[in-house]
């Protein structure tokens, strides 16, 4: 870390339309962008548009009996009164709030630890990634066995440590199912959060801390006054990534609970409506609703980011 990145002065935005040359360059720029825009339109806008269109129809997977009709807002009206969907939204939001806050707190601590220099830091940084590197379905299945009430190692350990007296069905018992699935997600994703935050920590210039030391700032003051403010961009990116991921969660819940009703996330509800029940139209409306809910979170974050930048 010998070079110090000096923050570039923010370029002043030009409102003028520019010279003739600039306009021509703009045109060439657009032409060069076209292929990538076409790809984006094909892989993102077209499917989204099609989903929105389908959400206004009564399309069925096995359409042998009913021909597809335009039904207007019928699906959305039904969705508004769909209590199962509402439950799934709340469950997903609860899951997101719990896991993202724990992952952030733990991830930050881990990032700070592995950012300080100590012997074996390299090994530590690699090893901490192990949970993140295991495919989610494999990890979830592993934990499902470990949490089993008859053969699970978790119950065995807790009983030997005299924390509980009888084996507990962590996954099956509705009282602990959300907690157990959150724990597994936190175990699995904290390394990812730590990694992103570590990257943010590494671009903070070391001489700021040296200067703070000279000025007699305590470690805690350094953390609040230097580390945290300069880490803010990395924190926001991390939180956006994790929140969006958590809102779309499917795999852990699917492995843990299958088709249980009280543990359906939004994504599982959409999948089982479309693929299980064959209601493509209604399922599309569910998907659009999920899209809007996730967009809402993105808007909140982006606004928050702007406000803090100013």
């Amino acid at each position, binding site marked *: 870390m010998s070079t110090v990145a000096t923050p570039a002065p923010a370029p002043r935005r030009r409102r003028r339309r520019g010279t003739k040359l600039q306009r021509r360059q703009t045109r060439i720029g657009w032409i060069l962008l076209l292929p990538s825009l076409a790809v984006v339109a094909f892989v993102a806008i077209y499917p989204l548009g099609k989903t929105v269109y389908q959400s206004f129809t009564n399309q*069925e*997977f*096995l*359409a*042998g*009996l009913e021909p597809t009709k335009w039904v207007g807002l019928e699906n959305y009206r039904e969705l508004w009164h769909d209590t199962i969907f509402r439950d799934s939204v709340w469950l997903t939001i609860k899951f997101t709030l719990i896991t993202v806050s724990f992952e952030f707190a733990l991830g930050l601590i881990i990032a700070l630890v592995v950012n300080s220099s100590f012997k*074996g*830091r*390299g*090994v*530590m*940084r*690699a*090893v901490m*990634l*192990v949970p993140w*590197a*295991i*495919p989610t379905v*494999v990890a979830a*299945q*592993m934990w499902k*066995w470990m949490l*089993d*009430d*008859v*053969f699970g190692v978790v119950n065995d350990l807790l009983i030997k440590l005299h924390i509980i007296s009888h*084996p*507990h*069905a962590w*996954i*099956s*018992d*509705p009282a602990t199912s959300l907690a157990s699935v959150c724990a597994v997600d936190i175990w699995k994703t904290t390394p990812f959060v730590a990694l992103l935050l570590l990257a943010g920590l590494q671009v903070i210039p070391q001489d700021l801390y040296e200067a703070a030391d000279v000025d007699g700032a305590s470690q805690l003051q350094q953390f609040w006054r230097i580390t945290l403010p300069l880490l803010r961009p990395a924190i926001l990116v991390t939180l956006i990534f994790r929140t969006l991921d958590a809102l779309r969660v499917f795999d852990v819940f699917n492995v843990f*609970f*299958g*088709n*249980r*009703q*009280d543990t359906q996330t939004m994504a599982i509800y959409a999948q*089982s409506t479309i*693929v*299980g*029940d*064959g*209601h493509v139209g209604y399922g599309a409306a569910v998907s659009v609703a999920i899209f809007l809910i996730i967009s809402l979170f993105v808007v909140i974050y982006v606004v928050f980011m702007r406000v803090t930048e100013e």
Partner: protein
Amino acid sequence: MKHRLLLLAGLVGAIALIASLSVAAASSNKPSRAHKAAAISAPKVPNAKTIKKKYGGQKITFVGDSVGDGHKRDLALAKRFTKDTGIKVNVVPHPAASDQSYSQLVRAFSQKSSSIDVAMIDVVWPGAFAPYLVNLKPKLGKQSKLHIQSIVQNDTIGGKLVAMPWFGDYGILYYRTDLLKKYGYKTPPKTWNQLFTMARKIQTGEQKTNKNFYGFVFQGNAYEGLTCNALEWIASAGGGTLISGGKATINNAKARTILDAMRVQIGKTTPRGVTSYQEDQTEHAFDDGNAAFARNWPYQYGIGATAGSKVKGKFSVTVLPHGATGKSVGTVGGWQLAVSKFSKRKDASIEFVRYMTSPAVEKFDALTNSNVPTIVSVAKDKAVRAKNPYLKPAIASVPRVTRPAKFLKTHYNEASKVIYQGINQILNGTPAKNVLPGMQSKLNQIIK
């Protein structure tokens, strides 16, 4: 430099750890059990020469079994078929939960995909899938006469034979003869309450030496199998068959009583986690010697009776218990083989179905996998009877209850989901009176 090396070493170590963990996870899927010695080999294909001349070298994909040793059987039969006819068969096991394998087929059919040639079809699906299946009557009509006619009728939609019966299924009760004797019981339980009492007593005694022992296991996970189990409980308690005469009937006093009785047993005479058990978990619990009673399909008999099984010679089968005011029943299960309309190798596929549903293969399946033959003469065969005691009239002639597929057609899966999700909720602790009314109105909406 040293730093880099350390990092590299760490990474390699991490990868090795992950690899070993994944392997461990994959291999512990099934507790190791002695493999079945293949005493009988797959029967040879009749008319193999003619078939080889016409279709040899073609390649077909068969979406087959995955429960118990079903996949092994499929591979053995496909290998023999390929050897005799030159038609290559790619055997793909379907998802173990039947509602998931339904979804898989829905996706393939709705995309008019030719990737599946022959598929294994649950007894409740022909109505939903008929438009996508080849009429087998012209080529296999004669062979279908050998099979039990009620199943053939089930597989005939609008005069077309859309699937061939392959093996039958009905729910039966497995019980440990040695433990019944040990705890002073002469006969297996007749009613559910007797079963609970016996399960309780045996469990209390056995848990002193085996902490993993429980009285009763069944399929309580929220999936198709629970619909089958619940239908048996409710029908055997005189609570009807979920839907009858085009109307949902599930919300009645008798159904409430039996469902609440089951709910109280969860975690007491059953493992608490039984609400996530499917067939395989049931079979493992019983065959590892960790349960006194189990409800399962006949296939479990063959696995338990295999040399090397912990319960070999210590268990028997009987009809399922009934409620205070009902009769023993068994849910009709069973699998058919069908050929996709979008297959590019229909004729070769039909030849494969002909072989798989022939008397020789059904006998092979009954002897090696204890699956219920759908061919009358095979079911009467002495060797088959001797090996599969659930075929004796006292068990085989018990009244059958059918899942309400005929009222639902393409909506069957959706309705079944309402049923198994609701029942699973009850088993997980919600009183039946809070769940059944909602289920009933949802079912009526779907029927409409």
